[in-house]
């Protein structure tokens, strides 16, 4: 059967590679195994092995989740220019952006699962969903919906390529048209998750969702720029410089908006000096001698501002050295700002005024590292099979037809 042969081909593709490829997968496997050990310990002993407590009841897991929803949503920054504006250089790589969205959503779901006190009864969500009242149910729906949308898009494009055909826009259009607002919805709903809690003034700001979207459009694309460069070095994927520079330009705008929104929030808190200032004060200067997050906050500020300056200048951002530095800076900056820098101050001080200094425990760090390693592992394998299929080198068709098809294959035209 062709399908079985094809699956065997895919498997062969995954299991062949140079030394670096196997070392890479091996390292990731070690990190994942280590995380598995941590997770088993957590299952046995309960979440007490984390440093979360009643005062700070969400920590590193939910911080990572929040950040990664942004990475997933950022696929839209490739989808819009490629399908709506038919910008060819990006159109050639939009598939890899969608694959990153799939990976990021899977990681999000893993982080949520890691955070549950009773993961085994998570199926209760589907028996008595508190819908539409609980925003968490909305999040379950939009995240899984987004996962399905992107999986379908990726699958359909690869399926067509494996059959030596162009994908049909008749089928892609609905997927694309739904996935654009849907990408915004996942991050908006995640913002509303926090936003809707009047008990936490730090989160209860109407600017939260726009800030989330703006920062997502920085960190996700920054990660893509870095990953695409690595990918084109180690594989025969073609990523046009023009695509990378266009993404960099978009980051510059997004970062401008992000910093503006952040500045607005900082102004409101510090100028009005209401009692709601406390979490912001804790973040920037420390509260009553508690200064745990202060260095992180300033590192994030410096990273974001420096990154922004580089992205603003076309001369700088079009040189790979500076571009890559800026991408790393923005990634770190947003990771801190939207992860720990957003989730933790919501809990500090807690609703009765107590300050509990939270930093993740070893278990939380190792388990989170494992989920990131899973993401890298999964994405690597996806690329490994997607590139040859996309290029027409791996298909359902017989061997002798492949050579002629390889030259024929071009990105979609309508």
């Amino acid at each position, binding site marked *: 059967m062709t399908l079985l042969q094809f699956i065997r081909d895919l498997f062969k593709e995954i299991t062949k590679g140079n030394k670096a490829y196997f070392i890479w997968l091996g390292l990731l496997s070690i990190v994942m195994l280590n995380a598995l050990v941590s997770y*088993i310990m957590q299952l*046995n002993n309960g979440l007490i092995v984390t440093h979360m407590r009643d005062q700070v009841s969400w920590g590193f897991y939910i911080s990572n989740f929040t950040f990664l929803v942004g990475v997933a949503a950022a696929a839209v920054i490739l989808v819009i220019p490629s399908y709506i504006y038919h910008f060819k250089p990006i159109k050639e790589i939009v598939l890899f952006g969608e694959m990153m969205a799939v990976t990021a959503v899977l990681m999000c779901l893993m982080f949520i699962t890691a955070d*549950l006190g009773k993961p085994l009864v998570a199926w209760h969500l589907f*028996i008595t969903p508190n819908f539409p009242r609980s925003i968490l149910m909305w999040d379950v729906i939009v995240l899984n919906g987004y996962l399905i949308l992107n999986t379908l898009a990726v699958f359909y494009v690869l399926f067509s390529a494996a059959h030596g055909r162009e994908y049909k826009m008749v089928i892609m259009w609905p997927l694309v048209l739904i996935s654009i607002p849907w990408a915004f919805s996942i991050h908006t709903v995640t913002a509303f998750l926090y936003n809707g809690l009047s008990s936490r003034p730090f989160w209860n700001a109407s600017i939260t969702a726009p800030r989330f979207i703006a920062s997502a459009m920085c960190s996700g694309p920054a990660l893509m720029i870095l990953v695409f460069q690595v990918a084109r070095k180690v594989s025969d994927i073609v990523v046009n410089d023009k695509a990378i520079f266009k993404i960099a330009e978009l980051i510059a705008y997004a970062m401008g908006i992000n910093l503006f929104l952040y500045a607005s929030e900082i102004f409101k808190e510090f100028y009005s000096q209401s009692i709601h200032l406390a979490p912001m004060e804790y973040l920037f200067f420390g509260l009553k001698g508690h200064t745990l997050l202060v260095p992180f906050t300033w590192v994030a500020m410096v990273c974001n501002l420096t990154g922004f300056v580089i992205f603003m200048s076309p001369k700088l951002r079009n040189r790979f050295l500076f571009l890559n530095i800026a991408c790393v800076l923005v990634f770190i900056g947003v990771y801190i700002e939207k992860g720990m820098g957003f989730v933790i101050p919501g809990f500090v001080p807690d609703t*009765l005024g*107590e300050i509990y200094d939270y930093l993740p425990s070893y278990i939380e760090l190792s388990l989170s590292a494992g989920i990131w390693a899973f993401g890298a592992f999964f994405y690597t394998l996806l690329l490994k099979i997607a590139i040859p299929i996309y290029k027409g080198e791996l298909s359902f068709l017989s061997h002798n037809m492949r050579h002629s098809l390889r030259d024929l294959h071009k990105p979609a035209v309508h």
Partner: protein
Amino acid sequence: MNRRNFLKTAALGVGGILLPAKDSPASVWESFFQKYYREMNDKEKKDVVARLEKEYEEKYKKHIKVKTNAPLPKVLYGYGLDLSRCVGCRRCVYACVTENNQSRNPQIQYITVLQFEQGEKWVSDLEESNKYYNPETVPAPEHFYMPVQCQQCEKPPCVKVCPTQATWKEPDGIVVVDYNWCIGCRYCMAACPYNARKFNWGEPTIPVDEINTETHYLGNRPRIKGAVEKCTFCIQRVRENPGRYPACVEVCPVGARKFGNLLDPESEIRVLIETKRVFRLKEELNTQPKFYYFFSL
């Protein structure tokens, strides 16, 4: 937790997840597939209670009664706390722990008593408070106290956010949790403005000789790891007929705590709401607590 124990832990972990324990094979599956409390009929409730009582008997070698008393008709519970009397002795805290079978290690307490220095900002700015005070005698000079616990809100934010409806407001106004239905996402804890919800971060432990054997399914029955719990106005006491006071009310040495039926115009709670200077905590959030602070002096 060190790595040395890993193999043991791993074996237990995988075993605990995949296989039911040797001695109680049926009950593990029964508890896993246990229905949502509000969807159980009387027969199902009875079966679950019987299973739970058996499990507790095996675990604690003691008969623990699990009641499922429904709300009393025409009752809406309200609580009053006299700030001019409270001396900050925290007997209520410990009476509550004992009555409600809270875990001793890790420690869980439903009531937090905040200590303020005289002249300090309070009510809206609780950051000035101290909950870890330890004087020789109470009240400490020039200090005053404000106990906080679940306010049994009329519009509870915790219930609104729960993704599985594992927590809800009963007709008598008590916000309860089906511990078996809770998935431990802790969204309710983020939503609660009063820090009233507590999570079982580790396996809850109670010394066997200190267990209160009179329990309610939605209240003080022994809890499980990974679920959220909270004050229920001692549901196991107040739903008796005639009802008893919650343990904190009963134990308070200065009579600062009042409790009653808000629908009964003759009740103590109604009289004090109508005649004293009353306020509710964080009223601006519109959670409409049924917990009234007042000044009798």
